[in-house]
């Protein structure tokens, strides 16, 4: 039993944190969000230099063979700084490619930071049901062609290639495709996503089926849990700071017991969320059977979703009117936590999944 990061993990997380503090402060981030790309190519290059784009991929392709626990500290730091770089979509795409015959040809560019990816899976109306894929793949001679529509694909505007799920006569399969023209939109939490229309788009089969989609989604959900813990930490820290400095009725508002107890409940919620993020990441890494993994991840996401809502709402409330202002980072953290609470399934979805397992 040991809940610390090892030395390597700690060093990497610390250097990511230092980099973000220096080069990804709230003001800089605001400029990146407002830029046409909605992410920073310069930051992306630095992340690649630091080894982040290769972290979870096999050494054969230039990666470091890491797992979810190796990524935890990084995702926490990203959550704290509200990083909008398309890191998670690239990791998800890479996760699938790494388990495919195309690994050798496609993965090195991902590791080097030259190729960003998006996982084009979700479709309108499917909500969180991973098995509902209407997009179809059909054979045309030696070619596979994709037909259908993917919705709100995170990171698609920046991606060079897409990993696409599609139905085939043998069930759902995964494909690698060049990205067609897409029209980007900004998500509630200031990331970029796109709806994608696939009309006879040529694709290479990656193999992989629904089980792999569930696996990569559990992996990403565990990372989202860690990211949420980072965002919760910022929300709690900044609210505590505000309670200590904001004065009303001649006293810091943190001297009022009604607010003290609410602050304490936020901190407890953060600790409980952190515990569940540890559980999710360690189960994802442990080669546990799919059921044990899914159960831990769903349990974690239930807690993260509930506590993300609790902490984000309270952080705005305790800031009073200032919490509503877009000038404060806490309001942007509110947006991120709201999205993270629902990403890859909200609490209701995971309650149903948890109970069914």
């Amino acid at each position, binding site marked *: *039993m*040991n*809940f*610390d*990061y*090892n030395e390597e*993990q700690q060093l990497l997380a610390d250097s990511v944190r230092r980099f973000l503090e220096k080069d990804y402060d709230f003001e800089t981030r605001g400029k990146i969000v407002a830029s046409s790309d909605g992410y920073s190519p310069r930051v992306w290059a630095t992340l690649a230099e630091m080894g982040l784009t290769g972290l979870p991929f096999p050494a054969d392709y230039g990666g470091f063979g890491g797992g979810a*626990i190796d990524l*935890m500290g990084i995702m926490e730091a990203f959550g704290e700084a509200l990083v909008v770089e398309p890191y998670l979509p690239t990791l998800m795409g890479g996760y699938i490619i790494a388990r495919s015959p195309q690994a050798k040809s496609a993965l090195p560019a991902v590791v080097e930071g030259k190729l960003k990816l998006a996982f084009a899976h979700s479709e309108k109306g499917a909500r969180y049901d991973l098995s509902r894929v209407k997009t179809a793949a059909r054979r045309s001679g030696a070619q596979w062609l994709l037909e259908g529509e993917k919705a709100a694909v995170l990171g698609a505007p920046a991606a060079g290639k897409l990993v696409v799920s599609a139905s085939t006569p043998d069930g759902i399969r995964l494909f690698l495709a060049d990205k067609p023209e897409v029209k980007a939109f900004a998500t509630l939490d200031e990331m970029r996503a796109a709806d994608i229309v696939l009309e006879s788009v040529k694709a290479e089969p990656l193999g992989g089926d629904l089980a792999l989609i569930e696996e990569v989604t559990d992996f990403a959900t565990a990372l989202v849990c860690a990211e949420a813990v980072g965002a919760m930490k910022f929300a709690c820290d900044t609210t*505590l700071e505000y*309670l*200590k400095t904001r004065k009303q009725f001649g006293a810091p508002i*943190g*001297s009022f*017991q009604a607010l*003290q*107890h609410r*602050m*304490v*409940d936020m*901190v*407890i919620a953060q*600790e*409980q*969320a*952190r*515990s*569940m993020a*540890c*559980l999710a*990441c*360690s189960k994802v890494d442990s080669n546990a059977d799919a059921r044990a993994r899914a159960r831990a991840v769903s*349990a974690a996401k*239930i*807690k993260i979703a*509930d506590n993300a809502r609790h902490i984000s709402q309270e952080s705005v409330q305790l800031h009073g009117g200032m919490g509503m202002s877009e000038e404060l980072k806490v309001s942007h953290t509110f947006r991120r936590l709201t999205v993270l609470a629902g990403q890859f399934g909200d609490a*209701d979805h995971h*309650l*149903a999944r*948890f*109970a069914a397992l």
Partner: protein
Amino acid sequence: MDLNYSHEELQFRDEVRAWLAGNLPSDLRDKVSSYSHLSREDLMRWHRILADKGWVAPAWPKEWGGTGWNLVQRYIFEEELGYAGAPPLIPFGLAMCAPVLLRFGTEAQKKRFLPRIYRGDDFWCQGYSEPGSGSDLASLKTKAVRNGDHYAVNGQKIWTTLAHYADWIFCLVRTDANAERRQEGISFLLMDMKSPGITVRPLILLDGAHEVNEVFFDDVKVPLENLVYEEGKGWTVAKYLLGYERMNTGRIGESKRQLAKLKEYCSSLKNDVRFRDRLSRVEVELMALEITNLRFLDRMRRTGQPPGADVSMLKIKGTEIQQALTELMMQAADPAAHDDFSVALRKKYLSMRKTTIYAGSNEIQRNIIAKMTLGL
């Protein structure tokens, strides 16, 4: 990061588990499991079984009967007791009076009291709360006046758990009404419950059970040698006890047992999504608390720092979970049923409301976290 127990820790757990399977009397286990009343004899019988095995006071120094187990082993042991459904070990002697004597007592006091606590010869109770002094403990008024070779004690304690079983009581009393800070005039006294002038009156709680009492002191003579530490330093002693390492504050093992029982018991409701979701949320909260508890333990093990306000967090969450489980249990019962078990679990629901009030109400725990951890 590794959330799993080591091989040695698992072996230890299995050893404890196997011993409990063979040595926890089934009639006691059944009583606990059916929420039945546990008599003084039931409690002491189990105490003595553990004492004979040498496991009744693991945290004590070895010379006084401690096991020498490390923090994690002690935690595992306590969780296994709860999980197995063993009767509770009453903490007033083992985990409250004894640590105080070990830290502040004279050699004579240790020799006189510790072996008897260990063997279960003396049943102890705690005299802290008074009618006007609950959460604001330092406002207590029970007065002890030094008179030759003894103190004369007058006043009243309330909510005194199991005073009607007790041979001894440790009390916070006021020895100096004029101290500058009111905390400074308080002393820690040990009293024989058979002393003339002590009267115990039952206070029946909302579940109809006799568990707590009022204790009245009318010119009770307490020998000076029964003062622990210095006169006027009782608050230091009480504070030490509050920060004393309590591994099982969250009562994870016991709640796991209740959860397993609830899952079995609520099978008729398994298609009720509303009930199912409430149950799942409690289960997830308990999973989170177990890991939080282990995280704190791991940190304590590595830093050597006392747990501080961490214990408050475990108390808040642990008691909320215990209450939620009994509430669901009551809800799962057939509303038309009035067999012994159905009645007992409804009473259990009533009784468990005390958990968020006793041992420092959960509001006081939040005050502690706000002050100690958050600096508010």
